């Protein structure tokens, strides 16, 4: 399987920004920590750097190989393929979750009468087209669209200055460290740990020497954006409303003086779109790798359809989705994000250096 098309370091960084920003800004997973959510997010961010370092280390130990190949090398052909299959399931499931998040968000906030199916299918069409166009198109589209996210975040942060109440951030650690850790754990698995998916994209990078720089800068920017938004929301809404609101980031943009919250929503569309695109790409790429197919582009459309179907089938309602993502998801994602990568790293290290 030859892939000529490549992405640049800048494009990879932008993809990481979009991916991490993605749906996690709509549903703030750290909100359980009330006014300390920013601190939880900070911890998760630092954890995210550790995890990304882990993934980069895995890639650097077996360069030019994507996750599936590395798994095969690490765990043997059959076990590796099986774990790879699980990973592919995880990727497509992740895509379906983000689809659902975005759909529910849009349906709650603006398009109350429109059926969820229609909304999700509308999102899926450009994404299917994008994945079908290949990794180069993905990277370049990210390049020309994602930069909107930091700009619009900056605009909202500046425009909301009159609404800030710095006292909302106090008292620090009111309920002790437990809620903070819980928020940090939630936030680590969503979205920072999800960057494990980039093990499928690293081989497409054309400037190998920029890998560490690009990925860490991407994560840095995304983390700064997320923490800025969390701080902004806490200061604008107060810790209590921040915790109770389903979409806190949206609620605070409705207070913008110019009422441009609808335009800000497109920003979230971009982030989620980047995330889903990366997920679908990783799925089709993984499938093509697993079964040694000629081209991954062929699989794009059915995979998108499958993800859309899964997103609709998986949950009955928004509350079910919220409960599942906060209670079950962190544990469900744990093996994919931490356990298997750590095992893989140990095995690879053993194979490279001890033998």
């Amino acid at each position: 399987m030859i892939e000529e098309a490549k992405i640049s370091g800048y494009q990879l960084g932008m993809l990481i920004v979009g991916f991490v920003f993605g749906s996690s800004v709509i549903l703030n997973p750290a909100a359980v920590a009330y006014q300390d959510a920013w601190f939880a997010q900070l911890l998760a961010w630092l954890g995210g750097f550790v995890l990304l370092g882990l993934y980069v280390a895995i890639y650097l130990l077996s360069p030019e190989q994507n996750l599936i190949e590395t798994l095969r090398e690490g765990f043997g052909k059959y076990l590796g393929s099986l774990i790879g299959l699980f990973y592919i399931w995880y990727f497509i499931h992740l895509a379906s979750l983000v689809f659902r998040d975005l759909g529910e968000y849009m349906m709650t906030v603006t398009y109350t009468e429109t059926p969820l199916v229609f909304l999700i299918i509308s999102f899926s069409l450009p994404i299917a087209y994008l994945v079908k166009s290949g990794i180069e198109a993905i990277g370049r589209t990210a390049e020309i669209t994602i930069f909107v996210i930091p700009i619009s975040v900056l605009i909202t942060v500046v425009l909301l200055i009159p609404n800030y109440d710095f006292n909302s951030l106090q008292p620090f650690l009111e309920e002790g460290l437990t809620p903070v850790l819980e928020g940090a754990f939630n936030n680590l698995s969503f979205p920072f740990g999800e960057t494990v998916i980039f093990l499928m994209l690293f081989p497409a990078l054309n400037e190998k020497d920029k890998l560490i720089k690009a990925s860490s800068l991407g994560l840095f920017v995304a983390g700064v954006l997320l923490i800025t938004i969390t701080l902004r929301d806490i200061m604008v809404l107060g810790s209590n409303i921040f915790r109770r609101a389903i979409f806190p980031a949206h609620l605070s943009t409705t207070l913008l003086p110019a009422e441009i919250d609808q335009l800000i929503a497109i920003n979230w569309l971009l982030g989620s779109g980047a995330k889903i695109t990366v997920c679908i790409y990783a799925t089709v790429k993984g499938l093509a790798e697993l079964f040694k197919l000629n081209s991954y582009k062929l699989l794009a459309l059915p995979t998108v359809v499958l993800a859309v179907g899964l997103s609709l089938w998986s949950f009955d309602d928004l509350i079910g989705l919220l409960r599942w993502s906060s209670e079950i998801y962190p544990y469900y994602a744990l093996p994919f994000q931490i356990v298997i990568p750590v095992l893989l790293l140990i095995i690879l290290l053993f194979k490279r250096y001890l033998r």
Partner: protein
Amino acid sequence: MLKKKIILGIIILSILFSTTACWDNENVDDIAFVTGIGFDKSEEGMIEVTVQLVVPTFLQQREQGSDEEAFWTISFEEETVFGAVKGMLSTVNRRLFRNHIHIIVIGEDLAREGIIDVLDFLERDHEMKKNAEMLVARGSTAQKVLQAQSNLEDIPSIHLTDIMENANQLAKLKQKDLITLLREINQQGQSSVIGTVQIVGQDGKDEPAEEADNGEEALLLKDMIVEGAAAFKETQLVGWLSPPETRGYLFAQGEVIDGIINIDNPHDREQRVSIEVRSAGAEPEVELKDGEPRLSIEVWATGNLGEQQGAGNLTTQSDFAELAKELSALIEEEIREVVDLAQQDYEADIFGFGELMRREHPDYWQQVRGDWEQEFSQAPVEIEVQTTIRKPRMIRMPTRPK
């Protein structure tokens, strides 16, 4: 050939789209803009929702000289707010569009009973504008307030919000928008204060005029006065703050932007001097001494000499100092009054000392959070006011006939 077919297809598709309106697609002339919404308790114990709608066509006709009112008020009773808002559709032929609500008025009866149920709807509704201004109708109902016509503006709600802005500038009214109220209610150690509107009748009497609406004439906005404030304990109305008390409260909060305060002329005690207070600030503080809370408010303000009645040249440094001293005393007195009111009469921590305590002494706060209002009403409050008078404005000394 193919190109033509593609174009044909696009045309057919677009006609399809245009004829079958999509789910959320609603034309702007199918919605009614709600500019003000009011909540009352009806006699049957239900919630009576009053909305003020704008009729854009009449608005344009009015500009061309029509006498037709450009707004329309309608009330509906239901057990829930949402039910009432939806129930109005049996009278209004358009969907009520709540995104441009300027003002939320709460009737006194409902306020006394508690506004929490109303607030839930306002917070939950995705269309509700969260920075609409709040008002309590003192001695009357929200319905009456919203029905009043304005002579200056075509839409009374806009008139109301504008004069609220003015009153807030002049330190007569506590302006509060929905999101701030929600934040305060969610904060554990804080009670809220909302501005009030009163109907005073044509002759400007200072008491509620019930007879104002029994005549044929419609109530006018100039018969109302927007000043003072209502103190809430949790979500229940517990009492009123008069305009001077409101000013004291605003001083204590450091929210006075442009207050006019009249004090005695030091040279001529019968006459008055008007001071314009600008750039005032306040810093409430809490301390723990032997496990007992001690509260204090430090207020500072600068003022300009605005007007002088009576004899004497006040534009000297010593007189300015004298004036400042009197000003400080007056402000302190005003603050003291409202503090006493809050501590003794209402037992409501409208200053947010509890919130401060929570931030600064979380351990203590954990012990008293259940009965903080009790603690608050017994805690000593120290008030310290520092003022300076800066400018005499345009003249060095007052004019005197020779």
